[in-house]
Structure formats: structure tokens, C-alpha cells
């Protein structure tokens, strides 16, 4: 089997960077996430981190993204240039859970009536080098959400061999292409794939979406939401939360319109000019988020919008735990 030796990873990323923007897991200012690779000896790859703090959704949906620039002089106004983020991109080291989230984003941005042109431009030439996950963490429950963590559907799957060397397994024509570009660094070697550790957290969500359809007004939402502070952390670190805002940046007679991540946890998210707000209180916002994850997205697109990465479980400052939320939702009685 082909192997990417640990001392060749930088070289491999440099080769791929010659023709594409390559996103790799890195630590920047104490926050791990997926950043564009530049061979800087100061910046190490963060290959030992199980799940990066920030998910890789920024590859296709940057936290802030210019949409178009405009001029506005007197009574005249015009769009000057529409952003075109098309280009070759590679993501290196994405886990099966985050990849499953990317598939959900594809459904949201590329199906049901409209294609989002900005998303499509970033997504269509994206090559995926996914990393099989042999050592899940204490908050991981991806398998319960239908993730194949050892065989993610990617162009290339890499497998940890210890010492930060990776077995290299191309799975698509695009993956073969990447392989041929790296023929100078990949070596042929007999490999023994590691033993996969079991997931500690399991949860059965069979029938949950259907049950939730009858639970909108259930009193359990008061109890469940009581600890939530509406800080929005869960939505920013979530790989499948994709809501965005559109805002404007104007300087004198020119400006640009951009979009940026938004959060359903905030009152302003649904606040209308004039003051009416259909989700005025935190219970309503909390309920909408969990129902979007476990019911609404499922009804619309046929899959759940939670992929079990566990980021929100670890990072919620007040201990809201989606596994406990699901357990409670399953447990309570629904009046017929």
C-alpha cells in the first residue's frame, strides 16, 4: 500500500499547494481549525488534535465572505464586481464526521430550488483527503448519527500508522490524480492498519424525528433550555450549522456586501423591523435549533443535521449536552 511518511507531509502539502488552496488542521492563536497551508516552520500541523475546535465548514462557507462590491455616488448606484471564489481546493485530514456535515451543507446550498453560487464555486473543485478515525474521543457519537468513521467517502482516505505516517488510499479518479501528483513522496510499503477503538457514546435516534413532530409545544423544552445562555458557541463550532447573515460595509462612495456566519441563538436573528419577533424567547430559539438538527432538516432533506462530532458537548460553557437532550426527548411522554 502507498504510504505518506511523516517526514514527507510538508513536501506533499507544498506540492499540492502549487495548484490549489490546501486546507490543513492547524493551531492558530490557541484555536485549532482548518487553515490554508503555507510552509512556515513556525506553524505546525495539528494532526494530534482529535477534532479541531473550529470545524472545516469555513472551506466552503468562510466566516466572512465578500459577495460583491458596489459604488454609490449621488443618486447612482451600481454593482462593480461580483466575487468569484472559484478555484482548485484540497482539504487534508478531514474526519468522517465533518465530511458528513459537508454532505448536509451540500444539500442545503445546492438543492431545493436554488444553487448558492458562492458556495458552489468553492465546493465544485474541492478534493477531499479524509483521515480515518481510529481513536474517537469521549464526547464522540458519530456512528449513532450514521457516520462511517473508518471508511469516509472521500477522494483519498489516509490511515494513521503511528509516528504521523499515513497509509494513502485513493478512492476516486480525483484521488488517483492527487496520488500521481505525489508519486515522488509516496512510498510503497506493507502496512498494518491500526486497531479501531470503540466509540464510548452511543445513542439510538430511530423514530426521533417523527416523535418530535408532535412535541413542539411540549413543556420539556422549558426544562431543557433553562441552562442555555444563547451564547451561540454551539452554532459557531458546529460543522453543520450554516445560517448566515448578509451585511454591508460602506466607506464613502463605495462598499461591499458580504455574508457572515449567524446564529439562531440570537434574538436579532429573527427580529423584524418594527419589533415583532417570532422567536423572542430563549426557549423558542433553543427549541428551533434542536428541532432543526433532529426534525426540520430531516423532513426537508432526509438526513439529520447533527453528525455526532461532540464539539458542542465539549465547548458549551453551561453544560448543555445534545446527548442528554436527545435522551430526555426520547424519554418524555407525548399526549396523543
Amino acid at each position, binding site marked *: 500500500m502507498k504510504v505518506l511518511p511523516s517526514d514527507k507531509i510538508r513536501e506533499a502539502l507544498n506540492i499540492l499547494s502549487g495548484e490549489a488552496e490546501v486546507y490543513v488542521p492547524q493551531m492558530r492563536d490557541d484555536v485549532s481549525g482548518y487553515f490554508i497551508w503555507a510552509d512556515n516552520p513556525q506553524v505546525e500541523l495539528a494532526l494530534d488534535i482529535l477534532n479541531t475546535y473550529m470545524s472545516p465548514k469555513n472551506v466552503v462557507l468562510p466566516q466572512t465572505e465578500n459577495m*460583491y462590491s458596489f459604488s454609490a455616488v449621488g443618486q447612482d448606484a451600481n454593482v462593480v464586481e461580483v466575487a468569484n471564489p472559484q478555484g482548485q481546493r484540497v482539504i487534508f485530514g478531514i474526519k468522517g464526521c465533518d465530511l458528513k456535515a459537508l454532505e448536509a451543507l451540500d444539500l442545503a446550498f445546492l438543492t431545493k430550488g436554488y444553487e448558492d453560487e458562492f458556495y458552489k464555486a468553492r465546493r465544485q473543485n474541492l478534493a477531499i483527503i479524509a483521515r480515518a478515525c481510529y481513536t474517537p474521543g469521549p464526547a464522540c457519537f458519530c456512528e449513532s448519527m450514521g457516520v462511517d468513521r473508518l471508511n469516509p467517502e472521500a477522494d483519498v482516505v489516509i490511515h494513521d500508522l503511528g509516528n504521523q505516517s499515513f497509509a494513502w488510499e485513493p478512492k476516486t479518479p480525483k484521488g488517483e490524480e492527487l496520488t500521481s501528483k505525489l508519486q515522488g513522496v509516496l512510498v510503497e510499503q506493507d502496512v498494518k492498519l491500526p486497531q479501531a477503538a470503540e466509540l464510548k457514546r452511543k445513542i439510538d435516534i430511530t423514530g426521533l424525528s417523527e416523535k418530535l413532530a408532535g412535541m413542539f409545544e411540549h413543556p420539556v423544552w422549558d426544562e431543557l433550555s433553562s441552562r442555555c445562555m444563547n451564547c451561540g458557541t454551539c452554532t459557531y463550532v458546529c460543522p453543520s450549522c450554516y445560517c448566515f447573515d448578509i451585511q454591508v460595509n460602506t466607506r464613502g462612495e463605495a462598499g461591499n456586501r458580504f455574508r457572515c456566519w449567524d446564529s439562531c441563538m440570537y434574538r436579532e436573528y429573527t427580529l423584524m423591523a418594527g419589533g415583532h419577533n417570532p422567536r423572542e424567547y430563549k426557549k423558542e430559539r433553543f427549541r428551533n435549533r434542536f428541532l432543526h438538527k433532529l426534525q426540520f*432538516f430531516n423532513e426537508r432533506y432526509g438526513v439529520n443535521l447533527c453528525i455526532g462530532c461532540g464539539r458542542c458537548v465539549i465547548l458549551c460553557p453551561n453544560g448543555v449536552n445534545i446527548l442528554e437532550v436527545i435522551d430526555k426527548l426520547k424519554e418524555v411522554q407525548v399526549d396523543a
Partner: protein
Amino acid sequence: MHDHGECNCKDHGQTNPLVPTMVKVLKIVEETPDVKTFYVAGENGIPFKVMPGQLAMVSQLPIGEGMFSVSWQADDHLQFAIKRVGLLTEALHDIEVGQTLGVRGPYGNGFPVEACKGKDMLFIGGGIGLAPLRSFIKYCFKYRQDYGKIKIIYGARSYDDLCFKQELFEEWPQVPDCEVFVTIDNPEEKWNGHVGFVPAYLEEINPSPQGTIAVTCGPPIMIKFVLQSLEKMGYSDEQVITTLEMRMKCGIGKCGRCNIGSEFICLDGPVFDLTQLKKLPPEW
């Protein structure tokens, strides 16, 4: 998408649904102290075809953009009746004829104009809620022979707050088989018409549900009471249509915020009949 090297990007409204097309303001009508109707058109007339009840995003480029119902889709221009309530609408109320605005759309499903053919039409509006209804009312007038008797019940807080006064008091009552009923919330010296809330006035007029479709729009609280009144008067859920408002940013079902349950108001709405509405969570 075409190459951006040389283009002036004027026609991107057609290729990227999030990018506006430019239109000029041809005329501004002051409807009430805080509502103005803007007549807009592009160089080649209407920027896109719109059906009654559909929405469009209007932008004053340096300030922001907001979703509005198109209150009339004329052959050569579009009309937006816009109430001054926030940052953007404040800015829109400050502009003058000749201003260039951005528009993108149309968004949403619109009213079921085909399915309503041959029916008597009952329109029930409150405040600025008459704006979306007007697109359907005027459509019924344009294709008058396709629709039966028309009743319009409309109310506002005060006489000054009544929108489209000239049409309401002069034009529409002249249309064959069309009755217009107007009410205001509190008595006023200059008003000798009906006083009271819309749902109560509706029950007082008590239009028969026989062969009728009721279409209502107004503040959420008015809609909720009107729906109750209609039910009490014997209207079935299929006979009652409303159009909803939610905060919107993208208009194409991506940005997330305008959902009610799994439906997006910008895409699956804003028009729902009561059968559909009752299947959704009561979150509007």
C-alpha cells in the same frame, strides 16, 4: 457565470440569485405619514416578472437590503409600498425620484391566482398588510371576468394610516361587483365611516363562505383573530389564505432564519392556506 474581467456586472441578477439588478425610482407616492409607494423600473422595463403575492429584495446599496412584497406588478414597472420602521426603510423614505436601487427576486410562491378563478374573493387587510393583497386585488381587476364578486375589508389605526386612499375610496368601489369596507380603530372627527377592529367588522359584514376564497394579511395578531372569525363564519381551511412575514436575508432558502418548522417562508411561502398553516408550528 461569465468572466468578470470586462463586464460591468449589470446583468448578474439573472445568474447569481444573491446579486441585485439596478432599477431607478420613477415615482414616489406618500400613502400615509409612514408609508410610501415606490415605482421602480430598469432600463428595459421590469427587472423580472412577478406574480401577485411574490416578494423581492430591495436594496439601497450603501445601507442594506430588505424583503418586501411587490404591491403591484405593472407591465412596465414594479411597485413597493414600504412602511418606515427601521434603518433601511428610514433610508428608503429619504430618497427621491431618480435614485438607483437594487432589486433581486422574485421570491416565494405567490397567491394561487389560477385556483381562485371562478370564485368570489374576500380580501381582509390591516395596515400595511394591504400591500401584498393589493397585488392580487389589482390582478383580479385586470382579469375581472375570471373572478366572481369581490369584497375588500380593510382597517388601519387611524384615517391617516389608511394606505392607497385614492384606490380605496375612488377607484375600487367603481369596479363592477366590487364592494369596499373600511374601518379605523378609534373614532375621529374627520371620519364618518365604520369604527372598530377588522375581525369584528368582518363578522358584522358576515360574507357568505359559499364559493368564496378569503385572503388575509395584516399584523400577526390581526391575522390570528381574522382566522378565528372566518372559522366561526363557516369558512373551511381550504378557503382561507394568508401571507406571512418573517425576517429574511437570502430569499432562496439558505440563510436559515425565515423557517416555520421545516418550511422556509421565502421559498415555500409566504402564501399558505389554512390547511397548510395548521400543519406548521404556531411560530409566526
